[in-house]
């Protein structure tokens, strides 16, 4: 098992490298922040920008070299640098917003805010998917089954941003009616709240409810279809019939014999649902005014800030790859036929 995990972790490295190279080249070629900034300066001063300013900008953002060289220096920090770049040395590179934004600091503070939301949403949507899928399968072709299937299709068709805006306004209305603040609809925690990790977490709970609900409903439907299909397949298998014939109680058959096997295909969808939740976090965070990674990436994209976008790509890629690894390990736990040796 340990060997398996180590091997899989090592296999992540080329995939992650490939993803960062592809992203870096695309984002870097698509944007030219030096030109944009020069244009901005020209607009505000009304005079042509001196060559020395251009050179200084290019030097501080490493735009005085080619794209492959820039990628290399972003990754390793080897060569002639200002000491603010080189991922392997713990430096995330300069933001085009200048010293006002330290990418490493921004990313590390925002990471936990987003991870909280994404993990909650993924777990909740998988849980709901299993529940809905199993109920649908057990009551196959009943009215419950048809209603659940239709609801699943409905949520599959519903854009997260629309559902998010709807739920946000709904929560505001509910708060007004109840005269309370159960649902916090703006921000990810009380502003200026200080405390240890646990206190911060407890403080953030009222802010988490509605966004988690949105991402959960946006993400469960696809998995629940597969859960229903795999549950049906297992329920028609011989060993479940045998367990029934032996006189095992229905609930026990479902829980111990059927559900455990039926969960295996669903484990494949956990990483997919994680990456969908990462994407969904971009949308919900901007609707609910969170200062998390999703909004950070949107700002970086809008500004054409290559190094800032790359930090997000790297983190989101790592989260997804770890999700894939966990789902592979889950396979082994759920399916006794699979052994990782």
């Amino acid at each position, binding site marked *: 098992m340990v060997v398996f995990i180590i091997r899989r972790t090592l296999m992540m490295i*080329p*995939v*992650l490298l*490939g*993803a960062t190279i*592809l*992203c870096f080249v*695309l*984002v870097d070629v*698509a*944007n030219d922040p030096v030109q944009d900034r020069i244009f901005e300066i020209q607009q505000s001063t009304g005079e042509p920008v001196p060559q020395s300013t251009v050179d200084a900008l290019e030097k501080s953002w490493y735009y005085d070299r080619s794209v492959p060289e820039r990628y290399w220096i972003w990754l390793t920090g080897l060569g002639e640098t200002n000491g603010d770049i080189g991922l392997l040395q713990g430096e995330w590179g300069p933001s085009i917003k200048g010293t006002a934004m330290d990418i490493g600091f921004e990313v590390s503070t925002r990471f936990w805010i987003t991870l909280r939301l994404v993990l909650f949403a993924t777990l909740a949507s998988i849980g709901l998917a299993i529940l809905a899928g199993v109920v649908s399968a057990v009551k196959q*072709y009943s009215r419950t089954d048809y209603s659940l299937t239709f609801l699943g*299709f*409905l949520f*599959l*068709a*519903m*854009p*997260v*941003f*629309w559902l998010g*805006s*709807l739920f*946000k*306004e*709904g929560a*505001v*209305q509910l708060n007004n009616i109840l005269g309370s603040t159960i649902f916090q609809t703006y921000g990810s925690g009380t502003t200026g709240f200080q405390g240890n990790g646990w206190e911060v977490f407890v403080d953030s709970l009222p802010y988490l409810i509605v966004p988690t609900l949105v991402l959960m409903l946006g993400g469960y439907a696809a998995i629940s279809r597969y859960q229903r299909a795999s549950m049906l397949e297992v329920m028609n298998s011989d060993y479940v019939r045998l367990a029934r014939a032996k006189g095992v109680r229905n609930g026990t058959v479902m829980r111990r014999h059927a559900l455990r096997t039926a969960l295996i295909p669903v484990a494949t969808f956990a990483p997919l649902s994680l*990456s969908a939740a*990462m*994407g969904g976090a*971009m*949308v919900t965070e*901007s609707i609910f005014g969170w200062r998390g990674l999703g909004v950070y*990436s*949107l700002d970086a*994209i*809008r500004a*054409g800030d290559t190094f800032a*976008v790359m930090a*997000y*790509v790297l983190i*989101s*890629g790592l989260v*997804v*790859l770890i999700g894939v690894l966990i789902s592979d390990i889950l396979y082994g736990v759920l399916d006794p036929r699979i052994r990782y040796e």
Partner: protein
Amino acid sequence: MSNTAAPSLDAEAITTKERGQWAMVARRFFRHRAAVVSLVLFILIVLFAYLGPFFWKWDYKIHSEIPSWAAPSLDHPFGTDKAGRDMLGAMMQATKQSLNVALVVAIGSTVLGALYGAVAGFYRGWIDAVMMRFLDVMFVIPFLVITGALAGAIDTSVRWYHMAIILAVFGWTSIARAVRAEVLSLREKEFIEAARSAGGSDWHIIVKHLIPNTMSVIIVSVTLQIAFAILSETTLSFLGLGIQSPDTSLGLLIEAAGASAFNERWYLFYIPGLMIILIALTINFIGDGLRDAMDPRQTMVRR
């Protein structure tokens, strides 16, 4: 049947009509009630978007004679927005742009994905290994970030075809996986061997034999791609990284409606939202019906 003394063999040959594979598929599809209703609704939406503007007096542009924020009336059935734009006209244009993107993405990404998957599955070995690793790389790249970054970097105003190309270039991976899985088993079949012994080139076998035989997978994924493209395009437009004003999109209309879900201008929020849901929902049901209809294990009896 005629009463003349025709040989019984002939009479039998006349009574059973030959049914091709596609006739069977069509028959099965039309038994799926939800799918048929969805197909009708989807066709109505397409007509609304593409033919509607020829029959409706207002277009999607801002006109000075249109009052600002008028409630729904006979003159403006969906109301008007702040700038003085007839929302029915805007809805037609927005639906049209979203459908344009969706159809181009569906076709483009399917062609790309089917070829990629077929090539990978056909050659196996190291070609397959390299191509699959590339798919892993694509999976790790956050879809909204890369598409948003490219769309956001377009200097001129972003048009629907920009969005269509960007979404198609990054949206084909799921089809490639599905087609590859099919091709892996198809390539071992006798008819491929026959084609090869008859002197068929690799390209000929992939395009003329393998891909047509994965048609059922491909058609279903086209429908799923349409839904996926609609949702991605509207999401990007909502975030301000997609189609931009003065052109319009369903995502932009919802973004403009903002927080009006529960106030007196609720219609600005719900109508474009329901349109997105309706398109994605009907497409998903059509895809579901097609999948059932094209599944060879399917019996003619629907329980």
